Structure formats: structure tokens, C-alpha cells
């Protein structure tokens, strides 16, 4: 498990890897990965124990997940180079049954929280002490199935589940608050019986506080991580374009320069 001071350099390495993957593949969803890089990095390197599970419900950010898993030595660099290519296991959304630590193929939104709830229930039935983490987007809170899972998690008191919402406030075709307003999200989730922690989702120190804050929680926990979609992508951050468009060479070089040691 890494200490907080080491995490920024791990974040940089993970970003450089997935930016290269996206650039070589001429692929989009870059903003989605930049939005949750610190979330996944903190979970994998500073919070999760070996047997804990992570469900990335926002499967369109698979590249950052693959990069985090490569950083942890679970996916080889050789395999990373197959991203998006014919014959790869590393499709744009996580695959079925092929990679250790990726329990489910995700990508259709609104499935992940229920999957995590099922894993958390299994853990309770087995009486083991695993924690189950689930990272969702904010847009997929529109999905009715997400709310079915919310009710179920509370009904079963799944306090071994930690739900992190990547709250970047952009969804497929506009801003969350102009399409299906989510705020006041803290109050909504409090009313559903969750412990709610709100943090800056790009600040590693905030994550440490959140982790400390839910050491002894006896309720299900949700961490609302306020983030920027396309975080650090100059001219593209917080714009819809960063969800869909690939990088051009100048953008790629500028970002890699920014991340250089």
C-alpha cells in the first residue's frame, strides 16, 4: 500500500500510459479517464486490500482502469499495447472474464452499483471482511437501476460497500444539472440512508481524509468526488468534446510535456 506522498508520481505514470493508449488508438473517452484517475489510483494503491473488489461502472473509462492495473503489474505493458486493436482483450469497455481484478464487463450504465451490491452481499453471506468499491459516473445516476441498487444497499445494510461518484457534472449531451438535475445530491443520498462524504476528486489528501472518515462506518458509504471532466487537458477540460474526441499530436505532446518528470 502506497503512502500519500508517493501517489502523485503514480498518478502521472498512469496518465502517461493511458494518454499514449488513447493517442495510438485515435480513441475518445479521454475526458472520462482524466476525470477519475486520482479516484482509481487512490483506491488501488492506498485503500484496497488484495481481496477487495472494484467495479468500474463507468466502463467507458476502461483505459484508466487498464493503466492502473498495468501500474499494479496485473496487466502487462505488452498487452496494454494491444488496446483497441483487433484481437485484443482490452476493448474500449471492460471485457468479460478475462482480466484478474475486473469481475464484470461494464459499459451499459446503471449496472455497476447493483453488481457491487451483489458482491457486498456475497461477502456478508460468506462472513468475510472484504470491501467492495464501486465507481460510477454522475450521468448514470439518471438510471432507475442505480436507484434500485441504492434502495437495496440500504435495505441489506451493506456497509462493506463504498460507492464513489465521479461528479464531473457532464453527461452524454450536456450538463447534468440542465438535463436531469442531481443536486442537492448530498441530501438525496443522506435521505436514502447513506453516509455521505464530499471531496475534491483530484486531491489525494482529500481521499485520505475520506478513507479515515469511513474506518468505522456502520452505514453504506458514498463518496461524492467533485471532479473535472478532461482534468488537465488544456482547452478541453469541462467541455463535452473531451468525452468524444481523440487528441491531436499537439495536444498529446503538450499533455505529455506537462506530465514529464
Amino acid at each position, binding site marked *: 500500500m502506497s503512502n500519500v506522498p508517493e501517489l502523485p508520481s503514480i498518478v502521472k505514470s498512469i496518465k502517461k500510459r493511458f494518454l499514449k493508449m488513447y493517442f495510438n488508438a485515435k480513441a475518445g473517452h479521454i475526458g472520462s479517464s482524466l476525470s477519475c484517475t486520482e479516484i482509481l489510483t487512490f483506491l488501488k494503491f492506498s485503500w484496497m486490500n488484495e481481496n477487495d473488489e472494484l467495479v468500474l461502472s463507468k466502463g467507458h473509462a476502461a483505459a484508466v482502469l487498464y493503466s492502473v492495473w498495468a501500474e499494479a503489474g496485473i496487466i502487462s505493458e505488452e498487452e496494454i499495447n494491444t488496446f483497441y486493436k483487433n484481437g485484443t482483450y482490452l476493448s474500449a469497455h471492460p471485457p468479460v472474464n478475462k482480466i484478474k481484478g475486473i469481475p464484470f464487463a461494464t459499459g451499459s450504465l446503471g449496472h455497476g452499483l447493483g453488481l457491487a451490491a451483489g*458482491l457486498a452481499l456475497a461477502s456478508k453471506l460468506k462472513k468475510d471482511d472484504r470491501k467492495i468499491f464501486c465507481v460510477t459516473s454522475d450521468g448514470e445516476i439518471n438510471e432507475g437501476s442505480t436507484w434500485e441498487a441504492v434502495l437495496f444497499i440500504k435495505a441489506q445494510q451493506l456497509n462493506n460497500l463504498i460507492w464513489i461518484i465521479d461528479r464531473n457534472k457532464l453527461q452524454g449531451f450536456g450538463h447534468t444539472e440542465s438535463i436531469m438535475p442531481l443536486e442537492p445530491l448530498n441530501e438525496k443520498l443522506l435521505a436514502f440512508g447513506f453516509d455521505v462524504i464530499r471531496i475534491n476528486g483530484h486531491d489525494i489528501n482529500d481521499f485520505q481524509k475520506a478513507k479515515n472518515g469511513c474506518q468505522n462506518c456502520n452505514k453504506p458509504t458514498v463518496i461524492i468526488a467533485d471532479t473535472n471532466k478532461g482534468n488537465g487537458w488544456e482547452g478541453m477540460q469541462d467541455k463535452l468534446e473531451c468525452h468524444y474526441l481523440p487528441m491531436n499530436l499537439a495536444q498529446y505532446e503538450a499533455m505529455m510535456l506537462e506530465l514529464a518528470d
Partner: protein
Amino acid sequence: MRKEFAKGLIDNFSLYPKQVFITGDLGFMALEEVRNVFADRFINAGVAEQNMVTIAASLAYEGFIPWVYSISPFVTLRPYEQLRNDVCLHNLPVKVVGNGGGYGYGIMGSTHHNNEDIGAMRILPNMKVLVPLVPTDVNEAIIWMLNNPQPNYLRLNLAANFKEHVPPFAQWRKIKSGSGAVVIGTGPVLGNLLELPDEIYQKLEIWAVSIFPIEDIPVELINRVNQCKRVLTMEEHSGNGGLNEAIAPFLLRNQASPSKYINIFSKGYPSGKYGDQSWHQEESGLKGDSLLNTIQDLLK
């Protein structure tokens, strides 16, 4: 078949200790004893079938054998993508149980009927569909499912009761011999043939299909089709995607050459009116005079 189903679950509970039973808030006057026996392995997931199926996928991933139970359309069509993505793509042994396929829920109306379930379920990757016919099939189907490491869908309905000895539960079963025509059907709707005049019933050779997708077709059946030359398919299911469409390629590939090939199936709601299951079957030509007329024409 609900009583047989509940009894089968209870009888097999201790033999297969990894089972978890999840209901979508149904089971009043039927599953109380199952709840008692399963204890902390009985979960009411509420009226939230999408989540129920997803939860079951995760439990199966963790090594449990989860049952998910509701009225047929609510456990198949409502959570269809959850079944495809979370369960079937991952080939997880989730055991889906739909009460009342076809017009089983009768006067409850069209929202509670399911004439699309066999088609919708049999095309899902890795999914096996089980359609019991007689009361003893239910426990045999439960045991079959508990031993099958794949996703399954069990279609429960009111069982048929044949006078003839019905072989054990299997994909293909010959129910009786006859030399006038071959009837191939699925599910208890085949029991409507018992109401035909005896001299007509005696002329029919009856075969039942109880597991989909079809893997093969018995040589004996192909031979009988070629001898009798008259074939009727019979299903309480849409004419699209069901039994007839499942077996036709096998008949064709095996050079079956009937001179008459008639298909009867659920026709939906031709009059727009509602009634009990038998009434809907009659309106679709699956029962009563209209069934008699079809078979008389077939035998000509």
C-alpha cells in the same frame, strides 16, 4: 406448478448448499415455507427486478447458485439487459424462474402474460430454457438446473396430466404413438389434446420439447414425420421465435418432408378482449373447437 416448485426447492435445499433464493416481492401463499427453510438465504429484493438480476449475477460470480423469481414478464423482459450483460455474457449460473408463461395469468391481462419469453430467452448467450410439461417435471427440472453451470430460465405454468406414461424430463420426449399425424409441442398446452374425441386423439403421435435451444432432433421423429407426412406444431407462445422456429431448421436439415406442416401458437389479442388462460388459448386456436377443426383438417 408453483406448489411443485416450492416443494422441489425445499427438498433440494440441503443437497445443494450454495443456493440463494431471491424474489421480486412475490410468493404470497406459495413461498412462505421456502422462506423458512432458506432463512438468511432467502432475500426479498423488492419490486426491483433489474437490480435483482444484477445482484444474482454477482452472487453467482461469488460461487452461489442464485434463484430469481417473479411473474414471467417481470423476470425476463423487464431486466433483459441485466440478463444479457451481467448474467449471460459472463455465463453465470443464475436460475431465472418465471411463473405463468404464455397466457398463464389469464384475466390479469396482457401485462402479466408472456408470449415472448421462450424466444427472448433462448437467443441469449449460454442461456438454457426449460419448459416443464407434467407435475413431476418440475423437481426434475430443478435438479437439472442445479447441476447445470449455466444461466437457465424455467417457465412455470399449470401442468398437463397425460394418461400415458411420460418419460423423465429431457429435451425431446415422445408422449405417445399414433399414425395419423405428428404433433410437436412445448409446455402444458399440449394437454389440450386430451380434450379431443378419443378416436382423433388415438391417431396423434405426440412429441414434447422441454429444453431450448434445440441441440439435435431424434432420428425416430424424423422417420415418423416422413411416414405420417402430417405435422402440427403447438405452442403457447408467439409464432415468432418460439418452438416452431426452433425446430424447423432441424426438420429441414434432416430431410423431413411433411406434406402438411401447420403451426398453431399464441396470436396475441385478436379481439382485444380478455379472459382466463383457456379463453385466450381458444382465441388463438390452441384449444377447443378451433383446435379440433385444425386437427381434423390436418388428418384429411
